[in-house]
C-alpha cells in the first residue's frame, strides 16, 4: 500500500461571532476522512490538525476513522477571527495529489458555505 503523507498550513478567516471553530475543524477533518474512504483500498492512518494561539492555547483535532467521533483537545480563544491551521493527512492507499485535492476542495467548500475564507500556504 502506498503511503504519501500530505501536510499543509492554512489560514482560515471567518466573522468571529458566527464561528464555532471546534465544530468547523471537526467537520473539515471528518469530511476529508469520509471522502478518502470512498476510494477502494484505502486505510486512514491519521488525519490531524493543530492551531496554536499566542496566549498558549491550542486546538487539536484528530480523526482516525470516519465512523468514530473526532478527538478534540484544547480550545480557541474567544472572538478569534483568524486561525492558522497545520493539517496532516496520512492515508494509506491514496496518492498525495488526490489527498491534496480532497483536502483543498473540502476546505474551499466549507469556507464558502459559511461565508468565510481559507488560504492554503505554500
Amino acid at each position, binding site marked *: 500500500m502506498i503511503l504519501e503523507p500530505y501536510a499543509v498550513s492554512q489560514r482560515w478567516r471567518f466573522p468571529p461571532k458566527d464561528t464555532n471553530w471546534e465544530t468547523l475543524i471537526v467537520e473539515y477533518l471528518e469530511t476529508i476522512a469520509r471522502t478518502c474512504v470512498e476510494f477502494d483500498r484505502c486505510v486512514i492512518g491519521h488525519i490531524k*490538525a493543530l492551531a496554536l494561539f499566542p496566549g498558549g492555547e491550542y486546538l487539536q483535532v484528530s480523526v482516525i476513522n470516519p465512523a468514530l467521533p473526532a478527538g478534540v483537545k484544547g480550545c480557541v480563544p474567544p472572538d478569534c477571527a483568524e486561525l492558522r491551521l497545520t493539517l*496532516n493527512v496520512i492515508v494509506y492507499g491514496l496518492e498525495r495529489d488526490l489527498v491534496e485535492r480532497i483536502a483543498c476542495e473540502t476546505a474551499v467548500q466549507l469556507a464558502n458555505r459559511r461565508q468565510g475564507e481559507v488560504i492554503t500556504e505554500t
Partner: protein
Amino acid sequence: MLFTGFLGSGKTSFIIPLAEAVATAKRRAAIIVNEIGEIGIDNQLMRQLDLDVWELLSGCICCTMSSDLVITLQKLDAGYSPDLVIVESSGAANPSNVRSALPYYRGRPLQSVNTVSILDPLRLQMLIEVMTPLITSQIQYADLVIVNKIDLASPDEVAFACRTVQEINPEARVICTQAQQSLEPALMSELAPWLT
C-alpha cells in the same frame, strides 16, 4: 525510551504527561519526535506546552532517517544531558529497525533502552489484517504494551488486544488504560520508576 504504535494510537497523549512529570521532578526530558509528514504537528504542540523537543520530519527513523536519529542522540548527549530521552517514532516505524540503529550511537552509554508500544483496540483487528508485518513488529519488540482507549473500546476489543499481545509477545508487560492529563501511578511506575 522508544514509543511506538500505529498512527493515531495515542503515543503523544502518553508522552506529554510523562515529560511533564519528569520536568516537575526537576529532571530533564528530551523528546525526539519523528513524523513522516513535511510539517509536524506533535512537535508544535509539545513546544507550545514548553517541552524540549527535537524533530525529525519528512521520513521515518526506522529507515530513511535512522542516521538522523543517531546524530540527534549524540547532539543531545553533548549539549543537553537529559535524564530521559523519549523517542516518538512515526506510526509507520518498525521498532526493531529503530533499535538496530542505536549501536551506532557514540555518546555516553545509555543506561537502558525500553520500547513502549501503544495499541488502539478500536482498530487493531482491522490493522492486523491489512498491515500484519508492521503491527506485529510494533507488538513483538515491545517491553511494555499499553492498550489505550479502553473508555471507547468494547470489552471484546480490549480482550482481543490483550490476547493478540499474549500470542505475539508473551514476555511483554501489558497495561490497559486510557490517556489522561496525568499518568496513573501504576503506569508511571512502569514508565519512570525512578520518579516514583
